[in-house]
């Protein structure tokens, strides 16, 4: 015992350092184990369906036939809706916070929008299911369909057909947009604020309006940061589970109409996990999880690589 104490006091420096290295290594081990464990626990499904799982449009627990296409389709569509709504909104919100609003107003509004990010996703789910979806069904969807007549517009009309049920792709996409809005606008605000005043002032000096400066100078100058912000939002939206599970409708089908119920990878796993008593069924769900892991991993890799490049070119502070 005494020897141990002497040894420790003598070598504590190395021990302490070794301990921190060990903690740091845990992160790497977890990441590697995530891939390995999911793949191992999905081995039956991987063996049975192979890579064809990805483009197989079939999900039938009764026949024990599974394919990921409808879930992947739903994930992509809901994410595209979310990005289409959230990115332009974030640009103008960042513009408002940095260029237009009084500093006090900007601080308060900025904090309020950041709070949107703190609300747990299950709360979005509750609100979406009981408040927002009924509103979509009764007011917004009929309005888009009939009053605006989007249903009859050639091309995009197909997106707005079907009974307005409130539950479906459009509703989940909009809720996702609200959820990722604070992440994207916070990064964009920082990017906008980092554009040197000299650059903007020279454009103003030539007689540009605020919007022209934003569009042609700020956005161009900060394009890398803006892209980075979009990747962050994309990563969030693609794996979001609870809010989507509540309002997407959980139907394994691929439909062009945004009014129809569908599902996403995350919502399928969350919803069907409890029912998956058959080993192959369970493994198909874990296989779906592996697909989602690979998707988010790639997006995060690109985002991180992008941010590292950005830091090099714009200096620290981001």
């Amino acid at each position: 015992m005494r020897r141990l104490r002497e040894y420790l006091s003598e070598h504590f420096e190395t021990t302490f350092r070794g301990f921190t290295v060990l903690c740091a290594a845990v992160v790497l081990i977890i990441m590697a184990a995530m891939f390995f464990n999911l793949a191992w626990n999905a081995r039956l499904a991987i063996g049975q369906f192979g890579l064809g799982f990805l483009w197989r449009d079939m999900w039938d627990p009764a026949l024990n036939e599974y394919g990921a296409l409808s879930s992947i389709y739903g994930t992509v569509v809901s994410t595209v809706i979310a990005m289409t709504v959230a990115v332009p909104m974030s640009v103008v919100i960042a513009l408002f916070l940095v260029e237009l609003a009084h500093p006090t107003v900007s601080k308060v509004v900025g904090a309020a929008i950041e709070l949107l990010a703190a609300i747990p996703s299950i709360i979005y789910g509750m609100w979406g299911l009981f408040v927002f979806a009924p509103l979509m069904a009764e007011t917004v969807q009929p309005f888009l369909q009939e009053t605006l007549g989007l249903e009859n517009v050639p091309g995009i009309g197909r997106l707005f057909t079907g009974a307005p049920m409130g539950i479906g792709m459009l509703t989940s996409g909009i809720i996702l947009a609200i959820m990722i809005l604070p992440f994207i606008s916070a990064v964009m605000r920082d990017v906008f604020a980092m554009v040197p005043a000299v650059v903007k002032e020279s454009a103003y000096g030539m007689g540009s309006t605020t919007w022209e400066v934003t569009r042609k100078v700020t956005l161009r100058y900060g394009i890398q940061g803006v892209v980075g912000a979009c990747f962050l939002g994309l990563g969030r939206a693609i794996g979001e589970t609870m809010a989507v599970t509540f309002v997407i409708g959980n139907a394994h089908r691929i439909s062009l109409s945004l009014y129809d119920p569908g599902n996403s990878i995350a919502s399928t796993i969350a919803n069907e996990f409890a029912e998956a008593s058959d080993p192959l069924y369970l493994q198909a769900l874990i296989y779906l999880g592996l697909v989602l892991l690979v998707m988010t991993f790639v997006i995060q890799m690109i985002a991180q690589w992008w941010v590292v490049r950005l830091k090099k070119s714009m200096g620290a502070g981001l």
Partner: protein
Amino acid sequence: MKKTQNVRRREVINHIVSVLSGLAALVGIFFLGWILWTVARQGLAALNLDFFTKLPAPPGSDSGGLANAIAGTVVITLLATVIGVPLGLFTGVYLSEFGRVSHFGRMVRFTTNITTGIPSIIVGLFVYTLLVVPFKHFSAYAGAVALAIIMLPVVARTTEDMLALVPNALRESALAIGMPRWRMILAILFRAARSGLLTGTLLAVARVSGETAPLIFTAMNSPYWMKSLAEPTANLTVTIFNYAMSPFDDWKRLAWGASLLIMATVLAVNILARYLLREKK
């Protein structure tokens, strides 16, 4: 001077965008207010003494509470904090003090950032394969491990950032009087950065205490009081998920009550953390 048509057009566009940007900010605040108001109104109607003291009742009896779920959430979150915060803290110490430029350090930093972006449902599935499949039962400790994995990178990154803010002169003077590095870190750096470290921990706790997806596969749910850490354990978020999807009105009411409780806690911790950080700055 007469304005040409072109200049007028540009000014009009500028005005339109200005109005739109104000509107977009308003829309953001409007949704925040709408969600807060809905949950507060629906939740307050569900909160009473029974809610905090009784076990869930069968649908229709109208007298049940979620006492067991409240206890379960507290236990799981505390356990997750006990596991996740020290791991994250020392990972942050490594990144900031030992591995700032080393190859291994860069790799860990990169992986930490990526882990932050891995969906929580995947973490849940991973811990399911790690701790539920081999032991053949759902458990509170599996839930805690899942939440700890989500906390780890958050704590690690804030720790690194906060330690980086401590001036180098402090490190050098501690080393100059003959302090070993470990004491310099524990006694000087941690003290200098304590409000920042506390903020990181609080933000991580706030982030996981509202998590649902990872608990579905790990802690699951239960209608009883927890007797040990090695059994399915009731918790507020999975209860909200189960009850909200049920057809019974009194269960839905309980779900709203639980939502209010979770949301109020998460927002309070979040605002506290931000306040601490502002003081520091």
